[in-house]
C-alpha cells in the first residue's frame, strides 16, 4: 500500500475513533445524570459509604448471601 493511502486511512480512522469516543463520553454522562429520573440507580447515595463506614452501620447496598452461604450459616 502506498504511503498516501495509509495516511488517508489513518485520517479516517482518527476521525471515526474521535467520534466514537466522544459519543461514549457523552453517552456515559447522559446515563449518569438521567439514571435516577428513569428509575435506575441513584449514584449520589454511594457517597454515604464513606460517611457511614462503621462496621455496625448498614451497607448502602447489602450483598445478598448466595444459597450456598445460607446453607453454611
Amino acid at each position, binding site marked *: 500500500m502506498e504511503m498516501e493511502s495509509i495516511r488517508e486511512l489513518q485520517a479516517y480512522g482518527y476521525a471515526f475513533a474521535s467520534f466514537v469516543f466522544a459519543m461514549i463520553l457523552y453517552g*456515559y454522562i447522559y446515563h449518569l445524570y438521567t439514571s435516577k429520573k428513569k428509575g435506575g440507580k441513584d449514584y*449520589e*447515595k*454511594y457517597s454515604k459509604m*464513606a460517611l457511614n*463506614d462503621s*462496621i455496625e452501620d448498614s451497607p448502602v447496598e447489602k*450483598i445478598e448471601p448466595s444459597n450456598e452461604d445460607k446453607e453454611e450459616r
Partner: protein
Amino acid sequence: MQSSNMINYDYSVAKCFAIATIVFGIVGMAIGVLIAFQMAYPELNYLAGEYSTFGRLRPLHTDAVIFGFILSGVWSTWYYIGQRVLKVSMAESPFLMFMGKLHFWLYIVGVAVVVVTLFMGITTSKEYAEFEWPIDIVIVLIWVIWGMGIFGLIGIRREKTLYISIWYFIATFLGVAMLYLFNNMAVPTYFVAGLGKWYHSVSMYAGTNDAMVQWWYGHNAVAFVFTVPIIAMVYYFLPKESGQPVFSYKLSLLSFWGLMFVYLWAGGHHLLYSTVPDWVQTMGSIFSVVLILPSWGSAINMLLTMKGEWGQLKSNPLIKFMILASTFYMFSTIEGPIQAIKSVNALAHFTDWIPGHVHDGTLGWVGFMIIASLLHMAPRMFKREIYSKKLLEAQFWIQTTGIVLYFSSMWIAGITQGMMWRAADQYGNLAYSFIDTVNVLHPYYTIRGVGGLLYLVGFFMFSYNFYKTMTASKAIEEEPQSASPMAA
C-alpha cells in the same frame, strides 16, 4: 445492626505501614534536602566519599520518597479505607491477615536490599526503575501479594458497590503492575553472554524505543503513584473528616474514567524535540492538555464538597491540609499541561522549572494528603486524640512556606536557565556559556535548599505529633464520626 456487630476493624497492617511512611519520609526527604544543598554548595558531595555524591544519592532520594514514603502511605490508607468502605474486617480472614503482614515484611526486606544496592552504585540507570532484575522479581511478588489482599477483601465484602476510592486503589494496582512489568523487561547479561555480575542486566529495548517505554512508564508512575491513589485518599478522608458527602458522586465516576483513559497517552511530552516520531510528541502534548479536565473534575469536586462548610478550614487543621492539597493538585495539573505545550517546552525542557513542577505536586498534593490521612487515621487506630493542634498549625505554615520557596525559586531559576541557554547574538553564537548559568542560579538553589529544609522540619513536627498521639495522648472512648479530636 447486623450479625457482625462484635467484630472490629483490624488496623495492625495499616499501623505498620503508617510507621514505615514516617520513617521512609524522613530518610527520603533528608536525602532530598542534602542533595538540594549539594547543588548550591558542591563541596557537600564529599561528606562520605563515593556514598555521598549527588549521583549516588539522587536515585536514593527519588526512590525513597516514591516507593518508600508514598507507597507506604498508600498501603497504610488502603488497609484502613479498604476495610471501612467494604464493611469487612481483616480479622474475619486469617488468610488476608497473613497476606497483609507478609506484604509488609517482604516490602521491608525489599526496601533494605534497594537501599544497600543503590548505595553500592548497583543500578540499571533507568530513572525511577533503577533496581536490578533480582529486586524487580521481589517487587513483583510484593505487588501480587497486595493484589491478592485487595481482591480477597473485595471478595468477602458486605457492601455490594465499590466506593470510588476502591476503584482508584484497583487502578493503582493494575496500572503500576502493567507499567512496571513492561519497563523492567531486561536481559541478564551474565546468563546470556557471560558478561558482568550475575545481577547485571541491560534493557530489553534499544535506543529510542527504550526512551519511549521508559517515559511511558516514568510519566505513568506519576499517574499511578502520585495521583490515582492520592485521589483515593482524598475521596475518603475529606468527606469523612468534614462530615460532608462528596459534592457529586457522578462527577467522581466521570473523572475516574476520564483520568484512566487520558493519562496513559501523555508520557510522550517527556520526549519533545527528541528522536521519537513527531506524532508521538504531538499526541503527548495534546493528551497532557486534555488531562486538565479529569484532574480538575476531581479537584473541583473536592473543593465543592466543602460548600457551606468553609468555616471548618479555620477550625480544623486537617481540613486545611486536605484543601491546600487539592488546591496544589489543581495548580500542578494546570502547570504540567502548560509545560507540555511544544513551544513552552522548548524553553522549559531540562531546566529547573521541571523539578519545581514535580515538587508542587509531591510536596503540596501528595505529602499534605498523606500527612492529613495519617493524622485522621491515628485517633481511630490508636483510640487517642491527636496530641497537639498547635503543633499541627505551626507545621502547616512552615511546610507551606517551604513549598512556596521551593517552587518560586525553581520557576525563576528554570526560566532564567532556559532563556540563557537559547540567547544568541546577531550571528547566532550562543551568548552564554554553561558556567554563566550556574553562577546566576546559585542564589535560587540556596533558596530551594532552604524551602526543602523547612518542609523537612515540618515533617519532623508531624512525626513527633504522630508518635505522641500513638503513645501519650488522651484516650478517647468513642470513635469520632467526623472531625478528629485533638488537644489544643
